[in-house]
């Protein structure tokens, strides 16, 4: 190295402090790791005072969106702590509910408060823990009162958020079985052997097309 000894004046004028501040700013911005004062001094022209430049710079960034912080012996720019929320990016992912989940949800909505055993009886299959947990996570189902029966089982009820999502004032607004049938949602296929129950007679077989129309219209 042929650098002039540090005391030798005049060969290279030391940059003014404002310029040194700019240099420190650029180095700290572009460097991947925090930088020590010694590293700064090594990278800056002869005669610079990085410590003083850092002090100026720190004041300059006081209250800004990024701050000059000390990391051990080194210095780095970091996002102001109160703005951390901006560093999160939410991606919304629409997902269809599984058949098990929507059936369990329907049973809870129509029969609330309802116990797990009752849900299983209606669905005819065991309800996995995960299904109810998932509905609770979604905020659509919560625990109700314990049933005053042997074992004091917990019950499940639907939440405000459920009503909000499905556009219902209350769970009582859920269409009844009769409404479902009228809307063609109860698919009344004739029983095998041409046997028809009395209540089937009232229903015309065009139920399918109603269902289709309703599906297209969406819920009112």
């Amino acid at each position: 190295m042929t650098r002039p000894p540090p005391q030798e004046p005049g060969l290279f004028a030391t940059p003014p402090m404002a310029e040194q501040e700019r240099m420190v700013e650029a180095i700290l911005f572009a460097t991947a790791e925090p930088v020590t004062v010694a590293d700064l001094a090594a990278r800056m022209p002869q005669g610079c005072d990085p410590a003083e430049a850092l002090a100026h710079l720190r004041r300059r960034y006081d209250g800004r969106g990024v701050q000059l912080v000390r990391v051990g012996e080194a210095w780095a720019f970091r996002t102001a702590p109160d703005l951390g929320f901006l560093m999160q990016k939410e991606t919304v992912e629409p997902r269809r509910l599984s058949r098990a989940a929507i059936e369990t949800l329907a049973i809870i909505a129509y029969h609330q408060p309802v116990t797990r055993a009752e849900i299983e009886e209606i669905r005819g299959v065991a309800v996995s823990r995960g299904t109810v947990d998932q509905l609770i996570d979604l905020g659509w189902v919560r625990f109700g009162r314990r049933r005053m029966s042997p074992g004091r089982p917990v019950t499940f009820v639907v939440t405000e958020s459920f009503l909000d999502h499905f556009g219902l004032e209350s769970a009582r607004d859920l269409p009844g079985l009769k409404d479902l049938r009228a809307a063609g949602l109860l698919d009344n296929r004739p029983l095998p052997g041409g046997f028809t129950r009395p209540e089937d007679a009232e229903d015309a077989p065009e139920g399918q097309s109603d269902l289709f129309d309703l599906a297209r219209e969406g819920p009112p």
Partner: protein
Amino acid sequence: MTDDWDRTPTAPPATADRLAAEALIVDVEGYEGPLDLLLTLSRTQKVDLRRVSVLQLAEQYLAFVSQARALRIELAADYLVMAAWLAYLKSRLLLPPDPAEDGPSAADLAAHLAFQLERLQAMRDAAARLMARDRLGRDRFPRGAPEDVMRIRKVTPLASLLDLMQAYARLRTRDDFRPYALDRDHVFTMEQALDRMRGLIGAAVSWVDLQGFLPAGWGSHPMRRRSATAAHFAAVLELARRGEVELRQTETFAPLQIRVRGPR
């Protein structure tokens, strides 16, 4: 380069001239096509590209090509195509214009060639200026320690009221439509009743109501009561037919009574 290029190619080439030509030839691999070569040749005219003598340039180019041939250097086809076109242009430029001829004049063609050269030169200059700019990663730097944006995946469930209703409807109608099968839970068969009665009728030495013979637990549930009553009635009819019991009913809808038939 010297002004020797200004000479007409018909003149015997001076040494410098020949050396220059050879230098060009040796460098032929370095040319990016005939237009590039023409541009290099035009520089030897030391004039603004707009005032370059196209006739002279054509002659320089043709001299270059014949020189290359003399030195047995293979030239790519497009160099030869350009040579042919320049030979045509040269002849047009040297002949007086034919007033009868339609189409572009030799001057127009020459102007176009000059335009092409100027345009290529302009692009080269632009490229050089572009490359000399303050470049990212060399003069300007991006953030060295980007703070990762935390991605939060939020799932929005897709479920409409209709989905909910359909799911419920599906559940409620499942029971109605299960395949037909005889529900045997509430059925007491005649054979079962016959077996039971055989063991019990010994006690009926005097008239007893048939109702009293119904099995425990079959009297409360209507379906079970009906089934058990019918089975036991059929059983005692069978026993009466065989002559093992006697039946009587004091009036219509009165309880049916049985009595074991004693040996005669």
